[in-house]
């Protein structure tokens, strides 16, 4: 029995469809998840503090919003502020919510959608497939 990693929102934050011809930004990708699980991971404040400056926070909140679908998750989604608070490094309440969003929401099945072309990229067994055909490439 293997423990397999599933797509986390940290990965979603880095993904773009900009390799498609004609796409200007391709970010953030819409997240249409059909199977998501809350996978408890030990809270690591240092990890969140180290990662936050490298993330596009609006992409994080957008992804969490996409997961706000009826019957998708049994547990409630973390409530995230629209911007990162100035005191984030010492704000444990914020860091805990950010950690849940970034590291504990496992997207197992669904798809990612290019915001400009609507092109869908499947997520299966927790892994996004961002391969495109030669004729789609920029």
């Amino acid at each position, binding site marked *: 029995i293997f423990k397999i*990693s599933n797509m986390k929102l940290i990965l979603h934050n*880095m*993904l773009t*469809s900009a390799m498609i011809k004609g796409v200007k930004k391709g970010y953030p990708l819409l997240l249409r998840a059909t199977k998501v699980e809350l996978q408890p991971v030990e809270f690591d404040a240092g990890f969140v503090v*180290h990662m936050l400056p*490298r993330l596009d926070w609006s992409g994080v909140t957008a992804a969490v919003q996409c997961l706000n679908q009826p019957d998708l998750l049994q547990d409630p989604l973390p409530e995230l502020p629209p*911007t990162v608070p100035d005191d984030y490094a010492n704000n444990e309440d914020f860091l805990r919510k950010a950690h849940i969003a970034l590291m504990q929401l496992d997207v197992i099945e669904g798809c990612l959608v290019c915001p400009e072309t609507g092109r869908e990229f499947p997520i299966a067994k927790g892994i996004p497939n961002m391969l495109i055909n030669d004729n789609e490439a920029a």
Partner: protein
Amino acid sequence: LTLQKRTPDTNHAGKGDFTTVYPASEDSFLFLDCLDSQADYLRQKLKPSVSVEIGCGSGVISAHLVQHVLSDSSGVSGSSCACLCTDLNPAAALCTAVTCCQLMPVASDLAGCLRSGCADLVLANPPYVPTPDDEVGTPGIAAAWAGGLEGRRVIDRLLTEAERLLRPTPQLSAFYLLMLRENRPEEVALEMRCRGFKSMLVVERHCAGENLSVWRFERGGVEESEFRVF
């Protein structure tokens, strides 16, 4: 106190569902040696938040990075680094997920699906074997080694991709690339110099008829600077 060399378990690669996935071989182990020798640099100087391995195969290299190189001396994986892995072969992406549950794999051509400037560290053990050009990027395991003319077809694309992925100066960033003597590594190093990277040969070994080397290309690095942009 003996320094025990640890290696991630990738016995599942090359069999069953992962028949088309390149199992860890001499070139992979040379890359692990490179990372081991660069442990202080990676932990204390670069301190990466985001690592991207392009062409991860079994995932052995990134697994080693997160489990043994970036983790603290007690062996607890408290690494504050998101380790992303890409591969053209979806079976390799899945194999990587099995190799190490902390890795973040995605099926992709090079790293085209990742945003520019997202990484501090890029790793690549590319298809380096000189082959006919029409063998490059074909479905199946041959894509893992077929490097086309002088084994440089994928490497040349990787130089541009790594440059794009790494965060811009003055932030410190590094790109580790494995090459074969026939790829003309010194020429690649010169090309990277032209692109603003300092080049350094980290490890070199002659194994199974191949003269292999791993190079580090480094850019930026202003001391005491902190940039926080949300």
